[in-house]
C-alpha cells in the first residue's frame, strides 16, 4: 500500500510543501513498533507460555508463537494508523469545513485483499500441517492405552493393558512412551483436557472418543481438568497427572494391583 493509492479525488488537495509526509511517518512508526514488538515477544514467549511437557504441546506452543508473530504487525497497523489520525487530524471544536474526500483505488483494495488472503491461507496451511503431524501417529502395540471415564464430578482411569484401574484417580504416565486416551462419559458431557500435554477431547455419554497419540517428554506433576460445563461441581473436577520414569511407573502399576 502506498501513498499513491490513497489519492484525493479533487485536484485542490495536493499537500502543501510544509506539510509533513504523514504517510511516510506513520509507516515508519508502524514498521519500527512491529519489529520491536516481534523481538519482545520472541524474547518473552518462553516466560509467558507454560513449559511444554509433550510432543503435542511443543507443536501447539510453536504455533502459538508463530501466530503471535503474525498478529503483532496486523494489530499494530490498526493501532498506529488510528492513533496517528487521532493525534494529528483532530479538531477541538465542531469542524466548519470538510476535509477532501478520499476514495480507495482498486489497486489498494485488491492489494489489501491479497495480503489478508495470503495471511489467511498461511494460517490455514500451517494449522493443517501442524495438526496433521500431531494426529498422524497411529497407536502401536507399545502405545500405552488409558481408558478415561467422566462422571459427575470425577474422572476414573483404567489401564486395560495392565488390567488395573487407578485407585486414587490419578493418571500415572511413563515419560517418553506414547500414550493414547480413550474417553467416554457415564452421564453428561464432560471435557477431558490435560493442558501440559496438549490433549483435549470431549467425553460424550454413549460415545467413545480418542485423543491423538501423545508422548510425554518432561517428568513432572500436571493436572487433568474438565473443560465442558457438567453441572454443580464442575469446577472441582480436576485430578493429578504424574509423568514419571518407567521404573517408577512399573512399581506404581504393581502397587495398584496390576502386572507390568
Amino acid at each position, binding site marked *: 500500500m502506498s501513498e499513491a493509492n490513497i489519492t484525493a479525488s479533487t485536484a485542490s488537495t495536493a499537500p502543501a510543501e510544509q506539510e509533513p509526509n504523514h504517510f511516510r511517518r506513520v509507516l515508519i512508526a508502524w514498521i519500527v513498533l512491529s519489529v520491536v514488538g516481534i523481538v519482545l515477544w520472541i524474547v518473552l514467549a518462553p516466560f*509467558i507460555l507454560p513449559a511444554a511437557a509433550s510432543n503435542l504441546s511443543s507443536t501447539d506452543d510453536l504455533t*502459538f508463537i508463530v501466530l503471535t508473530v503474525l498478529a503483532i504487525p496486523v494489530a499494530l497497523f490498526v493501532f498506529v494508523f488510528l492513533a496517528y489520525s487521532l493525534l494529528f487530524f483532530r479538531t477541538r471544536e465542531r469542524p466548519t469545513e470538510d476535509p477532501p474526500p478520499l476514495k480507495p483505488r482498486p489497486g489498494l483494495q485488491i492489494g489489501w485483499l491479497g495480503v489478508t488472503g495470503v495471511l489467511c491461507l498461511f*494460517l490455514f496451511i500451517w*494449522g493443517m500441517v501442524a495438526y496433521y503431524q500431531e494426529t498422524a501417529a497411529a497407536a502401536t502395540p507399545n502405545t500405552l492405552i488409558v481408558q478415561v471415564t467422566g462422571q459427575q464430578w470425577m474422572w476414573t482411569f483404567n489401564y486395560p493393558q495392565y488390567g488395573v484401574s487407578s485407585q486414587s484417580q490419578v493418571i500415572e504416565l511413563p515419560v517418553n512412551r506414547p500414550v493414547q486416551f480413550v474417553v467416554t462419559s457415564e*452421564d453428561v458431557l464432560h471435557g477431558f483436557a490435560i493442558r501440559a500435554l496438549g490433549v483435549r477431547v470431549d467425553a*460424550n455419554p454413549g460415545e467413545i472418543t480418542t485423543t491423538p497419540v501423545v508422548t510425554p517428554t518432561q517428568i513432572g506433576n500436571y493436572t487433568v*481438568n474438565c473443560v465442558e460445563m457438567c453441572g454443580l461441581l464442575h*469446577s472441582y473436577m480436576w485430578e493429578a497427572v504424574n509423568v514419571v520414569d518407567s521404573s517408577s511407573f512399573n512399581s506404581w502399576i504393581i502397587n495398584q494391583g496390576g502386572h507390568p
Partner: protein
Amino acid sequence: MSQEATTETTLQPQRRGLMQELFPSVVSGIIVGVVGAVVVALIVNALTQGGNQDATLSAAYTAWVFFFMVGIGAFNDVIKWGFGRREPTHEEEQQLAGKGQGLWRYFRWTTDHKVVGLQYLITTLLLFFVGSLGAFSIRLEQSMPGARFFTPSTYNTIVGMHGIIMIVAAVIMVAGPFGNFVVPIMIGARDMAFPRLNALSYWLLFADIPIIITTLFLGGFQTGWTGYAPLQVAQLTPGADAYCFFIIVFAISTTVAALNIITTVMVLRTRGMTWGRLPVLVWGVVLSVLLSLTAFPTFMMSQIMVVMDRVFQTSFFEAAFGGNNWVYEHLFWFFGHPEVYVIVLPSLAVAAEVSAVFARKGIFGRRMLVGSLVGISLLSVIVWGHHLYFSGSNDPLDAPFMLDTELISIPTGVFFLALVGTYWRGKIWVTVPVLFVVGVLVNFVIGGITGIYLADLPTDEILHGGMFVTAHFHFTLVGAGVFGFFAGFYYWFPKMVGKRLNPFLGQLHFWLFEIGFLGTFISLFYAGLIGEPRWQANIAPPFAVPNTIASLFAILIAASVFVAVYNVVITFRRGEPALANEWGGKTLEWTVPTPVPLENFPGELPVVTSTPYDYGEPEPAPSDVEGSLESPLLPHSQAES
C-alpha cells in the same frame, strides 16, 4: 394526513377514567397474565396429580405470555378489525400510535416506532445493568481461590443468567433501539411496515424477562448460558424450564422483529433512497436480522426438544435411550455462531456511521464496507463446527470449518481498512461517540486476532473450553458489540430523548470502561493460556493471580456502569435540550425536528438525491444523476401520507 378536529374529539373523550387508562395497559397485562398463569398451572397440576412440576411450569409460562398479551390488548385490533372487516381509520391508527397519551403511551400497546425504540432502549439498559451485576458477582467469586462467596449452585446460576441476559441484551441492543427508532426515519418512512408486530415484538420481550427471573426461585440452572443437554434434561429442579421458555419466547420476539425490519427496509424507502444510497446502519441492521432469522429458529427448536425431554420424557438427548448430546451441540452452535454476528454486525455499522460524521469525511470505500458486512454474514452461517473441533462429532469436517472460519478474517480486514481510511486525513471532532468507536476498533482487533488462535486446530487444542475463549468472546461481544452500542447511544440519544448527555461523564464512562475492560480480559487471556477452564466457581490456586488482577480491573468497569447510569438519570431529569441536528449528520433522522413528531416528517416525505456521506463533495447534483443510473431498482412503493 390531517383530518377534521371534530372527528378526533368524538373518538377521544376529554377525560378518561382510571379504568380506561389501566385497561388496556401493562398493568392490566400483568394482572391478567398472572391470574391466567395461576389458573392454568392449577388445572395442569390437578390433571397430572402434582406429579410433573415441569409440565405445570411449562403450562404456566405459556399461559403467562398468552394472557399478558390478552391483558395488554394485543388482540383487540384483531377482534375489532379482523372480524369487523373494516380498515382502521387514520385517527384510530394515530390513537394506537400513542397520540395525545403523554408518557403513559410507553406503558401501553403503542405502535409508534419511536415509542417502541425507546422502550427497547430502556429495556436494553436495564438488562445490561442486571447482567453486569452478575458479571461483578462472578469477578467477586473468582477473585480468590476456592468457592468463598457463593455456593457452586448459586455461582453456576449466576454465570448462566449473566450469560443469557447479556446475550439477549446484546442481540436487541442495536436492532431494538436504533433499528426501530432511527432506521425508519433514515429510510424516509413514517413508521414500520407492521406497526402492530413491532409492539408485539417488544411486549413479547417484556413478558419474557420475568420468566428468566423466576429461575432464581426454582433452583436455578447449572448449564451456563449454553444450556447443554443432557445436563439440562438431567436437572431435577424446574429452574431449567425457565431457561428454555426464556429462549423460546425470545426467539419468537426476535423473528417477529426481524421480519418487520426487513419488510420495512424493502418496501418503505422514500423516493430516491436506492439500495446504493442506503446508510450503512440500515445495512448492518438488515444483515443482522437476516442472520437472526437463520439462527433463532434452530435455537428455539433445540429448547422445545429439551422441554419435551423434561416434560414428556422423550429422549432426544439421552444416550441411554438412543439420544445424543451432539444433536443439541450442533443445533445450539448452528444458532450460536451466527448469533455472534447478529450482535457484532450492527455495532460495526454504527461505528462506520459515526466515523463518517465525526471525521467529516465519507466512509472510505462505502460499497467495499457494505460488501465486507455481507461477506461476514454469509460466512458466519457455515462456521459453527469450530465450536465442536474436539467433540468427536465432526473430525472429517475440521479442515473445512477451519478454512471457513479463517476466511472471515478477510472481510473483517476490509472493515478495518474502511474505518482506518475514514479517519485518515479527516477532520476528527473527538466526541464521546468517537471515543467509543476507537474502543470498538482497538477491542475488535484483539478480539478478532485471538479468534484466529481458536480457529487454528493446534492452538485450539490447548485453549478450547478455557478462559482464553471467555476472554476472546468478551472482546468481540463487549469490546466490539457493546462499545459500538454505546457509540450509537451517545450519538442518537440527543435525537431520541431530545436532551444532551453530559460529555465529561461520557468521557469518564469510556475511559473507565476501556481501561477496566482491557485489564480484566487481558488477564483472563493469560489465565486461559496457562490452562484455566471456564465456569470455575472454585478457582484452582495456579490461576489465582491473573484472576485477582482481572477482578481488580473489573472494579473500574463497575465504576463506569455507575457513571453511565448517573449520566442518564441526570440527563433525563435536567439535561439541556439538544439541537435538531446535534452533530451535523447528513442522514435523514437529523433533518426532522426534535422531538420527532408522530409520523416523523411534517408535510411531504423527503426525496433523496445522494448518499448521506458526501462530505467535501462540491455539489450533490451530479451524483444524483449517477445514482439513479447505477441503481435501476427504484422503490416501487412510497409511504403514502
